[in-house]
């Protein structure tokens, strides 16, 4: 089974100039563990909001690739976001869920994807151009080859092991995280 930090490291290798928005909890730590950059916007709260923050950036900057990296619990809380993204169809947005089937931050309670819920099917039915469940190295490679070709929105539920790697913590200062991310688009605080 794939490991979340290996997946995140591979994603980071392939990202180029992509902006990445991470959902609270493990996904934020995973993204930070690959090396901090101003092109990352880490969420420390606002559970259920990662996909919408990503949609906002993607709509505002249609020539930039935008990736949302989140977990199954965070995605499930904002499940309606998939419908909203499906209607808008931003070609430059990818939503990548590290799906371990558990709420990792709160004591590893089983989530809906551990039972019968299939996030990729929900994304496909919501109008994503590409929506896959990824279980193997090979499937991951081929998704990562294609995900930046601006033919999205694309979605991947990547099945990863149930584990809790050491936390890698970004700064908590939301104003700084906002301003430094905006500077990557040459936007400056007023």
């Amino acid at each position, binding site marked *: 089974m794939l490991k979340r930090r290996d997946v995140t490291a591979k994603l980071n290798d392939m990202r180029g100039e992509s902006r990445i*928005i991470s959902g609270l909890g493990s996904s934020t730590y995973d993204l930070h563990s690959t090396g901090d950059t101003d092109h990352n*916007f880490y*969420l*420390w*709260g*606002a*559970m*259920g*909001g*990662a996909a*919408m*923050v*990503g*949609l*906002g*950036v*993607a*709509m*505002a*900057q249609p020539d*930039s690739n935008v990736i949302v990296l989140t977990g199954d619990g965070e995605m499930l809380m*904002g499940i*309606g*976001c998939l*419908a*909203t993204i499906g*209607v*808008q169809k931003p070609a430059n947005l990818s939503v990548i869920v590290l799906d371990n089937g558990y709420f990792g931050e709160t004591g590893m309670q089983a989530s809906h994807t551990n039972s019968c819920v299939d996030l990729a099917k929900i994304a496909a039915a919501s109008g994503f151009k590409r929506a896959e469940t990824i279980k193997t190295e090979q499937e991951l490679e081929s998704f990562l080859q294609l995900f930046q070709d601006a033919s999205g929105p694309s979605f991947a539920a990547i099945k990863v092991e149930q584990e809790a790697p050491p936390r890698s913590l970004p700064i908590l200062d*939301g*104003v700084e*995280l*906002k301003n430094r*991310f*905006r500077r990557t*688009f040459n*936007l400056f*605080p*007023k």
Partner: protein
Amino acid sequence: MSYQKKEDIGAMLLPLLKEHGVDFLPFVPDAGHASLIELAFDDPHIQPIVLTTEEEGVALACGHWLGGKKSALLMQSSGVGNTVNMLSLISSCNFPFVALVTMRGNFGEFNSWQVPMGRATPDVLKAMGIQVYVVERDDELPKVVDAALYSAFSSDQGVAVLLSQNLIGRKEW
């Protein structure tokens, strides 16, 4: 019977939103916003975005600002209850934020089930650090919305403008 459509509200607000450079109007519909939403769909310079729940609009507005664009969230007061935790984004990061909220549950409401959230709306917003401006009369509307947009986008403030049922008209049953 349904709400009478308030044509004049949309006609009053759309030019103002464009003057302030608002690019996107995320919305969960309300009859009080119907004319504005309709006008915006016909306007190439401002893009309405339909949401499944109001909290999506809070996170979306933050994303738009991260990418250098402006949005104003349209919703009714019952939706304010759906936004509460997501409003922590506004406080934690000082995002500029404007919500235009049409009120239910005040001034002649028939549906008593709308009253609890209507009553709580200003307090809930204030508790999350959002400033609340209230509009009761047509002639105050442009001035107040102008002030909200100016405060938000000139200095990263969060402002909600509450449009009273006195202004938008009550729903007829």
